[in-house]
């Protein structure tokens, strides 16, 4: 099967072709090795980085993300898990682990912003 894949690795958005008609996966049209790797995963198990928010004790939101891509098919499962998280009124910094190995994906949910409970921002 031949398949066109729009690469999402960088803003260039290369059109990559994945062809396994010969029984072996042949990737063409990529501009970098990261793009090639992306296309390979995309045909086997598409992976995405999840970015979302977690509610802070003061009602505002803390932006979070997975520290590595997770299976695309598990995005909503992880969203449901994220919704259950209750944060403590402590200081958060960029990169702090909010939830280890979320939904068994192997990826950690980390803070992508900071929050100071005293200043409230």
């Amino acid at each position: 099967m031949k398949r066109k894949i729009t690469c999402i690795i960088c803003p260039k958005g290369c059109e990559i072709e994945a062809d396994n008609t010969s029984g072996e996966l042949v990737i063409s049209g990529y501009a970098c090795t990261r793009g090639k790797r992306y296309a390979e995963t995309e045909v086997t198990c598409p992976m995405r980085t999840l970015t979302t928010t977690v509610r802070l004790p003061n009602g505002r939101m803390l932006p979070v993300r997975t520290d590595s891509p997770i299976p695309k098919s598990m995005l909503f499962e992880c969203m449901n898990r994220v919704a259950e998280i209750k944060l403590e009124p402590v200081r958060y910094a960029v990169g702090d682990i909010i939830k280890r190995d979320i939904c068994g994906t192997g990826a950690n949910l980390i803070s992508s912003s900071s929050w100071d409970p005293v200043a409230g921002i």
Partner: protein
Amino acid sequence: MQDGKTEEMNFEEKTVDFRYDIVIIGGGPAGMSAAVQAYEDGSRSILIIEREKRLGGILKQCIHPGFGLEMYKEELTGPEFAARIAAKVREYGIKCMMSTMVLDVDQQLRVTATSSELGVFTVQAKAVVLAMGCRERPRGALNTPGTRPAGVYTAGAAQYFVNMYGYLPGKEVVILGSGDIGLIMARRMTLEGAKVKAVCEVMPYSGGLARNIEQCLNDFGIPLMLSHTVIEVHGKERLTGVTIAQVENVPGAGRVPVKGTEQYIPCDTLLLSVGLIPENELTVKCGIKLDPATKGAAVDQDRQTEIPGIYSCGNVLHVHDLADFAAQEARIAGAAAAKRVRELDRAEKEGAVEGENEPEKKIRIGLKTDGKVRYVVPQFITAREDVNVFYRVSDVFDAPQLTVTVENNAKDADGSATGEGTETLLKKKYLKLAPGTMQSVTLKKEMLERCTDGGTIKFGLS
């Protein structure tokens, strides 16, 4: 207000409350980057004025990844990208006034602002950098027929509700416009449990990045309807639906709905992602003319406007494709502002008369476009050094060639250039050019040495 007395405050009689060498208006990626660069170039008296509580500008609500690839060679979310630059601002100890709104900038480089803490105050600067960013075009600009119910938001306002406050403005969504914010919000609303029914784009192509169409729409099976627009809004209190239709390009009348293609989509939310406009109220009020194509100030290669000492950079100058590019451009302005301050200080030390120590007048070569090239930045060049010129095209072109020519001015006031008549400076072939992707070419010093003072460099496509 009786009998037309002006409502604007009278700022004529200003008492200066503070003095800083460089005042930067806006603490987003551009403003912060300008400040960081000015500091790295030696300036120690820098003030950033930011209207919100926290640095970062619009990046604070852009929680998605896609930032930093150019600047840091790694993919960051908006808040992470902002935090990187903000860390530098803090490390350098650059003064930031938060929750402070600039009301006025004048040609004498006085900046008047207000905050709860300080009230209304005026800062005298030696250089001012405008970095106010841009805003989204609202619905009114589209003049859509129909009712005026709740549930119609710009994509950015919806993004604020969802990402900053954690509220979902609607459950069944149609998005008009396929700009990147609209695409990003399609995914974001979907992840938070809303159903995005369609993204309509009036043009035959999307203005958004291909990767965003892929990961924000295709990943979730959201249809992108090109050459479609919303022709009517329904609902009394809350939006109940929209009528969309296909459009065709009728010469002279623009893109008009095609009869018989109307379809009704029930929805409670319409998000608009129909373009960004530089936020130039202060610029205009200051008496700086805008380039009608960029809707930002006309600037030279240093991002200096027509008013000496006032610089403009980032999305307030022209809307960039990526925050990285806005931040990189801001470094040019920051460096130039620092240089100006150094020159002024040196002149002062050498005993120049006050008020007469503006850096000496430079040459001026104008940059023009042919319409197919929609705009160029900078719009004029005042020094013969390598200049990176950014440009954007007006339509999708297959296999176009960019030709840059100069029309020299016979009366070269400055006399140091060798050029005469019209000549071609450079040609460049492309596979494809589209309005959504900003391009750049470098005009080398050698090329500019063939351009006379008062001449015009023209950017054209064929």
